């Protein structure tokens, strides 16, 4: 499917927002606040940090909305803005941490992961989410973003390629490698989640059907 054939459900609101209609943009904010906040949260692990970054993403999107030409879905473009905002933030934070962090702190973080996995009431949503986010945080940034966009946000490969501005093959490779690593990092959840609905299994293991 080419971008020209995509019917963007946000097109009219985007057009109005580009003409300065703040109400139209407010509707877009409410429509995507959960996705954008959760994307930022999955990439940063902190509610406050994610809140700030998601806000920043929307503010930047509003500033730049006149430059959005509709070459992709608005949603894809908004994800792209968000990923750029978070990446910029992580990059600057990483530089700061390199100056101040010590190996002891890194080890303490791993202990925290283990403690979370051993927490009673493990099925609790908050703990489960935190465990997943910790596992994601253990991935290199390029793998983390790709697998988050695919398996948490539900974007298809083409949208992810557009969002990250990389070839489809790169997206496929990153997602494959991310899942490989997460299989180890999420082992406790995978072991316990055998009965969970296999939402992605039919597609990934399509060959099993043949």
């Amino acid at each position: 499917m080419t971008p020209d054939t995509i019917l963007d459900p946000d097109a009219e609101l985007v057009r109005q927002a580009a003409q300065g209609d703040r109400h139209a943009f407010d509707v877009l904010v409410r429509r995507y606040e959960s996705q954008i906040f959760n994307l930022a949260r999955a990439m940063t692990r902190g509610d406050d940090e994610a809140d700030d970054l998601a806000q920043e993403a929307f503010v930047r999107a509003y500033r730049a909305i006149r430059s959005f030409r509709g070459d992709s879905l608005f949603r894809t473009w908004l994800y792209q803005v968000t990923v750029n905002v978070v990446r910029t933030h992580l990059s600057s934070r990483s530089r700061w941490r390199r100056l101040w962090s010590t190996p002891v702190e890194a080890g303490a973080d791993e202990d925290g992961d283990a403690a979370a996995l051993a927490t009673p009431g493990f099925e609790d949503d908050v703990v489960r989410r935190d465990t997943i986010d910790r596992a994601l945080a253990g991935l290199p940034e390029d793998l983390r973003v790709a697998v988050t966009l695919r398996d948490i946000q539900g974007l298809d490969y083409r949208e992810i390629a557009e969002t990250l501005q990389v070839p489809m093959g790169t997206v496929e490779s990153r997602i494959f490698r991310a899942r490989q690593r997460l299989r180890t990092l999420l082992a406790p959840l995978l072991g316990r989640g055998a009965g969970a609905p296999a939402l992605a299994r039919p597609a990934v293991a399509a060959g099993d059907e043949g």
Partner: protein
Amino acid sequence: MKGCDDARTWMARGGDGSLDEALRLALAAHLKSCAACRDEAAGQGDVASVLHARPAAAVPPGFSARVSARLDRGASWIELAEWRTWTWRLVPVAAALFLAAVLWSGGSASRGQAAASMSVALVDTDGARAAPEAVLWDSSIDEGLALRTVLTGARQTTPGEQRHD
């Protein structure tokens, strides 16, 4: 299919159901015969399932209101920083200045032309054809002289005025 490398590439692509029928069948055949790839495919599916079922974090209350407030608060600074915005807003001012400049220069030219005409009239030796009202535009001429010129219809000269006739 060349082997496990291709199978793994297609496992990923199969995640979107974007494999064509021939590749899908080839992948299925490979998975049947390759335990390692079968295990890999299962692992990929399991991880995807866990991630897909990740409980979404609730958006902090008042999030959209805070975005809106930031947009309101930042509007003036953002617009100031955006040169296109303020340059467009200056267009009416620039147009007004341009118009004023044109009018001013046009007026100056008219006055200059009038003064030149008047000067010609003053040096005209034929007093009967001189236009008295033109004399009134010459600020250098004494008011009494101008009045006498108008009333009598005869051209008067000031003491310092040169005659060319």
